[in-house]
């Protein structure tokens, strides 16, 4: 009759279906020809092809990083296809031109592409494998001067902006996966918010992996000009398959004077089955530069999916008085592993950063927080507050914390708090004694634990995140 934590992770992944659509998939393998092919499919200018090839040259000389606390088989980069796209109309002008199968896919995922059916005030860019299939509310946003489109479209329509900013935050040789992404990136979103504009709606991108044996190499670039504000959210799902698939993304954010970028992620890639078979390998480089005075970049992530997560959304606080924030909930269940955290690099004076990380481990999940707070020598009166909490459900999972702090200026003010707790039998019993089922009790306690992070999400998505967490925990007790 005891609470059976062993039964964790019995719940099936809800988004594991495959869309049957005719797709063009390029042959497996990574070489210059692959890169030229991708570039030509996207009608890219010569400079971008050269940029990609340069990244590839660097990548070839780099070694796969192994410092993360993650265990997974060696990835064969020649056994992956680097481009998969539906054969239907590559850039539909209206919804009628979209393949109905694809439209239905997004309906099933709860992301209807019809503007009138959408959540009020949310614009969506839908990325299906390697291409963006549709972006909603483009015209409405254009009235305010906001550019929201796929990065491929931006390369064609706004080459000046792309050329100026691409790789300006994450250089193409930054790290192994960033170099790989720079060589073969396919699609992602592009956002430009002009000076003084408060983006009138939430922007979001929904990433869907569908094709088999392909990698998804998302590239997103968001630029907020002086005094502007934008809130952006990405969601991700993938079919249930026995083979693991690679998702290696690069996201770059640039905030100018007094600009604010809020970037939220609800990551629900397929996590693999109970035996740890399949699932997405999620190797992601996300970084924002607060280049302007009093600019602000805020990352909020809810990571519940993926077999492997390697992800450290970071802020480089260059402008004086700039602010960086990182709010994270990472849940690992079954055999999932997550090595995630952030880097806060303080360069300017009076810069401040906040890190709140909540790791939940269940089943045999391993959850690692890895964070760096660096205070540069000119960063007078920089401040950081870090709070790092772990919760364990059951006794076969693990939580590990690796905080790094480098301070080169003595006026810095640093605070660090950390805790690890086991989901209390006493808390469970208390809730059940009041009438809640064991599952509802776990979900209530875990959601309470994550409250500080969820309150940073846009309201509609906070509700979504709570539900997702409950679903991901279903079967955790019996």
């Amino acid at each position, binding site marked *: 009759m005891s609470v059976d934590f062993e039964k964790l992770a019995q719940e099936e992944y809800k988004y594991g279906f495959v869309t049957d659509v005719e797709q063009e998939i390029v042959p497996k393998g990574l070489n210059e020809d692959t890169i030229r092919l991708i570039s030509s499919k996207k009608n890219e200018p010569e400079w971008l092809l050269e940029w990609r090839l340069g990244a590839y040259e660097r990548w070839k000389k780099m070694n796969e990083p192994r410092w993360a606390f993650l265990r997974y088989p060696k990835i064969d980069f020649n056994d992956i296809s680097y481009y998969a796209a539906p054969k239907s109309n590559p850039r539909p002008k209206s919804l009628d031109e979209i393949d109905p199968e694809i439209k239905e896919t997004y309906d099933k995922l709860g992301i209807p592409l019809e503007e009138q059916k959408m959540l009020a005030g949310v614009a969506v860019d839908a990325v299906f494998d390697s291409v963006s299939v549709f972006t909603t509310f483009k015209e409405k946003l254009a009235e305010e001067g906001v550019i929201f489109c796929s990065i491929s479209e931006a390369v064609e329509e706004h080459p000046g902006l792309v050329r100026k900013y691409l790789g300006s935050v994450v250089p193409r040789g930054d790290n192994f996966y960033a170099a790989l992404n720079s060589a073969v990136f396919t699609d992602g979103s592009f956002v430009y918010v002009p000076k003084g504009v408060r983006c009138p709606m939430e922007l979001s991108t929904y990433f869907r992996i569908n094709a088999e044996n392909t990698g998804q190499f998302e590239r997103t670039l968001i630029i907020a000009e002086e005094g502007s504000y934008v809130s952006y959210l990405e969601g991700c799902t993938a079919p249930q398959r026995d083979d693991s698939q690679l998702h290696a993304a690069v996201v770059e954010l640039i905030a100018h004077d007094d600009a604010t970028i809020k970037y939220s992620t609800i990551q629900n890639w397929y996590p693999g089955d109970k035996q740890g078979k399949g699932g997405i390998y999620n190797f992601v480089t996300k970084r924002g530069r607060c280049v302007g005075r009093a600019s602000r970049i805020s990352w909020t992530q809810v990571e519940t999916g993926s077999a492997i997560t390697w992800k450290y959304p970071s802020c480089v606080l260059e402008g004086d008085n700039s602010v960086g924030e990182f709010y994270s909930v990472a849940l690992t269940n079954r055999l999932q592993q997550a090595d995630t955290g952030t880097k806060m690099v303080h360069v300017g004076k009076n810069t401040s950063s906040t890190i709140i990380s909540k790791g939940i481990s269940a089943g045999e999940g391993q959850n690692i927080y890895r964070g760096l707070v660096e205070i540069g020598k000119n960063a007078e009166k920089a401040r950081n507050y870090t709070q790092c909490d772990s919760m364990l459900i059951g006794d076969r999972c693990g939580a590990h914390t690796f905080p790094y702090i480098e301070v080169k200026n003595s006026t810095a003010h640093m605070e660090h708090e950390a805790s690890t707790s086991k989901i209390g039998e006493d808390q469970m019993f208390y809730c059940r004694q009041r009438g809640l089922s064991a599952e509802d009790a776990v979900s209530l306690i875990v959601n*309470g634990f994550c409250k500080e992070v969820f309150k940073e999400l846009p309201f509609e998505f906070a509700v979504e995140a709570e539900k997702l967490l409950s679903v991901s925990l279903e079967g955790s007790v019996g």
Partner: protein
Amino acid sequence: MLEVRNLHVQVDDKEILKGLNITVAPGEVHSIMGPNGSGKSTLAQVLAGKETYEVTEGEITFQGKDLIDLEPEERACEGIFLAFQYPVEIPGVANTYLLREALNAKREYWNEKPLKHVEFAKLAREKMRELGIDEDLLKRSVNTGFSGGEKKRNEVFQMQILEPRLSVLDETDSGLDIDALKIVANGVNSMRGTERSFIVITHYQRLLNYIVPDFVHVMVDGKIVKSGGKELAQELEEKGYAGF
């Protein structure tokens, strides 16, 4: 309403309850007193279904149902409420949220419609006023940062909302000043009636001046060794447990 027969309970191979018997009829208030380690709290936890305690022998029937087979949440929905000796903190979960979920779980169990937010808020405010509890307590996280008195008052508040048939109060009086004690006692007394029963576990006779029991039981070494009326509590207060 409740019938416990020859109850034997052990934890980690150590027997704590050794053939306990008690019968509680509807509307009755029973007080269980006894020295430390006699098994009073164990009885409370076993009635509520705490899993660390193993029932090795005996029966517990509640309103004709065999209680031992029921999960803690089923017992709660059937109408058993335990006011904990040490109410646990649940950070980030608003007190009002837990309580509304709990009440609605119970209503669902009995095929009643869940209460809407507004209806619940009205009910909660009413009960809080009666108990003299600050409304602010609803928004705060469950028991988190509550003072000892606030925790106990919160237990009684929850009891008022959930309207259990049998409430077990496990040393609800411990650590309370006289004003808080009166509030707790009023909370119980206002619920007394022909249908509702109470088991009040306490060390001290003091509480029983405010909650006057129909029966007093003395528990020593896992058994009830003497039962009597309310005057038995007075006798214990004077003579102690040494005689047992």
